[in-house]
């Protein structure tokens, strides 16, 4: 059938904070903003490992994973999450994130498969628009029975 009834479908996003820094103000603001934009946001809290983030994303069947990395470890954490997604055979969950990331690193990460890296000061509407337009558009359409 060409047209599916999509009325009950919601964009589902998992927000997580990998690594050791304990600042979750920013990500909580994003979580609330995405909720207010009509999305279902699963917040998993601080100090998540790439494994737990990807496992949670699979169980929650989310369209996208958003992470906040303020510790400076973005060049290890983003690739580790990408690697974990690949290891689990996931190719249709969008990874995005934010943090204090120099332009040069941002380009590298976006080339490596992070869909978008937001840097401090990015307006929230920009993040909402990104999630609305870019997340959840390439979910594999699998046959049920």
């Amino acid at each position, binding site marked *: 059938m060409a047209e599916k009834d999509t009325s009950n479908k919601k964009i589902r996003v998992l927000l997580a904070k990998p690594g050791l820094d304990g600042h979750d103000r920013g990500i909580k603001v994003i979580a609330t903003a995405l909720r207010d934009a009509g999305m279902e946001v699963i917040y998993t809290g601080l100090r998540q490992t790439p494994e737990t983030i990807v496992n949670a994303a699979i169980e929650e069947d989310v369209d996208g994973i958003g992470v906040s990395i303020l510790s400076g470890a973005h060049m290890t954490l983003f690739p580790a999450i990408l690697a974990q997604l690949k290891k689990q055979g996931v*190719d249709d969950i969008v990874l995005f994130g934010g943090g204090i990331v120099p332009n040069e690193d941002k380009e590298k990460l976006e080339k490596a498969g992070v869909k978008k890296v937001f840097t401090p000061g990015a307006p929230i509407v920009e993040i909402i628009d990104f999630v609305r337009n870019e997340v959840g558009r390439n979910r594999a359409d*699998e046959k049920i029975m």
Partner: protein
Amino acid sequence: MSSGTLLQRFEAGDIRALARIISFVENQEDGYRELLSRLYRKPRHAVRIGLTGPPGAGKSTLVDSASRKMLKAGNDVCVIAVDPSSPFTGGALLGDRVRFKEETQGGRHFFRSMASRGSSGGLSGATDNVALVLDSFGFDFVLIETVGVGQVELDIVNNCDLVAVVLVPESGDAVQTLKAGLTEIADIFVVNKADRSGADRIVTDLTSMLMLRSGQKTHPTVAKNPNIPVISTDAVHETNLDELVNYFDSLIADRKESGEFDVRRRRQVLRKVSRLLQHRFMTETLQRSSSKAEIDRAVDSILAGKDDPYSTADRLFSETNLAPQSC
């Protein structure tokens, strides 16, 4: 990537397929009824345990500690945690996973957050179907955490074999105002945060309230079960968590033996069938193009004092092919 249909992969134990099928059922995508029909015919054995209680009482923390005890004993355990959807935007912030410590030992574990999506009874309308999916996957226990808005959430009784009402030392007032409803839904009371002062007091209050009520004939389940246990726990330090899990086991075993377990399941299935029937009947009636206008006219007449809702419903029913021919 992985081959086969989602259902085939689900049957082979694939977690991603399970997660996908849950969304499919939750979103009521095309074909979900056929899928559910298949699942209803598969062998299943999970016990459903519900946890309800005010926000912040420690439901998620208890679910986490209890599930790790159950896993360690070799059970496969899954969790459905429901949080409210905004009635205005439809969005939801699902935060129960924060309390979930990922490292587990023993059986298989699975955790799914659900938004209530317009349902007001403490669960989502799809919770029962999602629990069926998890049961069919082979889990031994499905733990269900309600929204917890502080009022009595009745959906949980219609979806679970056993309901734990979670309170805290500060819930004294709630016990006073909600006591009738609380005893009707509780199979066990958990006074959590027993590390704080006042826990003993509320345990005593609950116990004496239950003693009083056990003499009265109120609800069939209450009348048959005067002994609703009251247990105090500290979910963070896992005090009395083994005892709580033992209570779950023994209450379930007792009910299976007395036949009450099956009575409750029968009631739930019957309720589900009648709800579907009601829904079917309503949509069918409203779909006849004539009836929309007719209902509008009837409403006008009722407001004008020339008709009444009872006669209107009778008339609409008599116009369906369900009504006896003589009508």
